[in-house]
């Protein structure tokens, strides 16, 4: 008897957070709204008798992935997005048209099409969402898809690590990934700096980065001024 009020509450929370997620200009506010969406969806899963999926939703999405997103936003200290003049022109009427078509299609499916004529199943007790049944299904009937998905995720992980380790810095690179000759960092002397000489390498590196940064920063500033 509490199902419908709870569904209305959490559904409204999910929709409100989703709208806020798109409308916010501060990226951190958007991230927090996304966490709100995940938590409200988890609560809806709970009312649908799927507690395991609700818990996994919170642990994986809200507790792990969004923490990393928030971390990156915090570290980069992303500023509020500056509102730019809309340059969509003809795309706006096209978007409205497509949305109208989508809503019309959904209305047709729900009210006029064949789906409306099917009687809804009577509610019944189910153990599909419980931990034990999910574990049994995952490791017997759906073992192959489960393992294939794990291999896929492992490949993504290995790929990310490989990409991240391809660096020219002699301190961070993996032994096989360094260019043929380690780049000579000219720190004002003719000494070749070896990996491990932390202080000297750091000084040389800072100098190099300042020079590169000054060279790289100039066109960016111009471009931003031109854009606004």
């Amino acid at each position, binding site marked *: 008897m509490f199902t419908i009020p709870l569904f209305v509450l959490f559904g409204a929370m999910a929709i409100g957070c989703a709208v806020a997620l798109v409308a916010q200009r501060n990226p951190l506010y958007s991230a927090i709204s996304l966490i709100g969406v995940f938590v409200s969806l988890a609560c809806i899963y709970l009312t649908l008798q799927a507690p395991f999926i609700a818990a996994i939703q919170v642990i994986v999405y809200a507790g792990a992935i969004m923490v990393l997103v928030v*971390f990156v936003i915090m570290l980069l200290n992303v500023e509020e997005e500056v509102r730019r003049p809309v340059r969509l022109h003809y795309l706006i009427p096209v978007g409205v048209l497509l949305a109208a078509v989508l809503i019309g299609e959904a209305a047709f499916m729900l009210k006029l099409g064949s789906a409306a004529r099917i009687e809804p199943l009577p509610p019944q007790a189910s153990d599909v969402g419980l931990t034990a049944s999910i574990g049994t299904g995952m490791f017997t009937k759906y073992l192959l898809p489960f393992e294939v998905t794990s291999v896929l995720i492992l490949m993504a992980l290995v790929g990310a690590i490989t990409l991240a380790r391809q660096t020219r810095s002699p301190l961070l690179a993996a032994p096989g990934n360094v260019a043929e000759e380690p780049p000579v960092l000219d720190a004002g002397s003719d000494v070749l700096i070896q990996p491990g000489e932390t202080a000297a390498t750091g000084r040389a590196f800072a100098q190099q980065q300042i020079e590169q940064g000054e060279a790289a920063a100039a066109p960016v500033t111009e471009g931003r001024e031109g854009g606004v």
Partner: protein
Amino acid sequence: MDWLSNLIGADWARAVGQLVGINVGFVVVLMIVAYTVLAERRVLGFIQGRLGPNRVGPGGLFQPFADLLKFIFKEEITPSASTRFIYFLAPIIAITAALMPIIVYPFGPEVSLPFIGKFHLVIARFDIALLYVLGITSVGVYGVALAGWSSNSKYSLMGGLRAASQLISYELSLGLSLVGVVLISGTLDLYSIVEQQGGWFGLRWNIWDVTRAPQVIGFITYLISAIAETNRVPFDLPEAETELVAGFHTEYSALKFALFFMAEYVNMFTVSMLATTLFLGGWQGPFVDVFPLLGIVWFLLKVSFFLFLYIWLRGTLPRFRFDQLMNFGWKFLLPVALFNVVLTATILFFRWR
């Protein structure tokens, strides 16, 4: 509960019962937490050869209320450069995430009371209790991370980053060290996990249950990661006062600081309850079959043992360095926890054959 069911219907009676249970549970936990703070200050005093707060009431017994009054009457300061909404949101997230898990811990067996009838001494019992605890704990990271960011001060940011990275690193070994217990129990429901540990005068507690698979390694890894998870000495890097003033709550004053402070101690209390429930048999103890209400006493005794351990460690150990902390968590604790999972699974495999 029959008379209440007749009056307002079974669904509403259950809802009212749980609401009362949740509120009573919160008040009791907050009182225990208040006195844990007092106990910490007194015991630390004795460890360091001084007296500690002993002026307010007999032996300093009313000190927590004096502290609370002081927190309420302090000036509320909001840094002008802070991100206001998130600055106010962060302590709320911290205390909510700390208080939410306490409803799933069973603190006694089935009892029957006059006017209420028979019921289990647990506020909410459901299929995924353990996952619920882990999920809420993982959301608690946002409290410290956002507090550090929104204060817009470098000490707060450093403290918040340290705290967040420490929490997500040690969450892994915390979760993995519990897998062994789940394997031997075959359920995530905390009440049935405790029920399975009954009998044999405490020899069937999960930590040394030789009939299934002893969880000594799991217990030790859990204890270490739980201390790191609650940001306590020797893992209190986020609040290292010699480097970071006070870490993520540097810019917080008055009741907002009190919320962070309470959240830390409530977290301590909940991880102690989880350790008791999963490894030390929860409310199981001598004479529980005869006097069911004695279960509450055993439960609180075991939990206060862990709380005392926390205070004792704080008075004894120095602080880690940050790279040592990360190395220890990722290169030692996580492999050991994984090894425990493999070991438990292997033992159970040969037991069941």
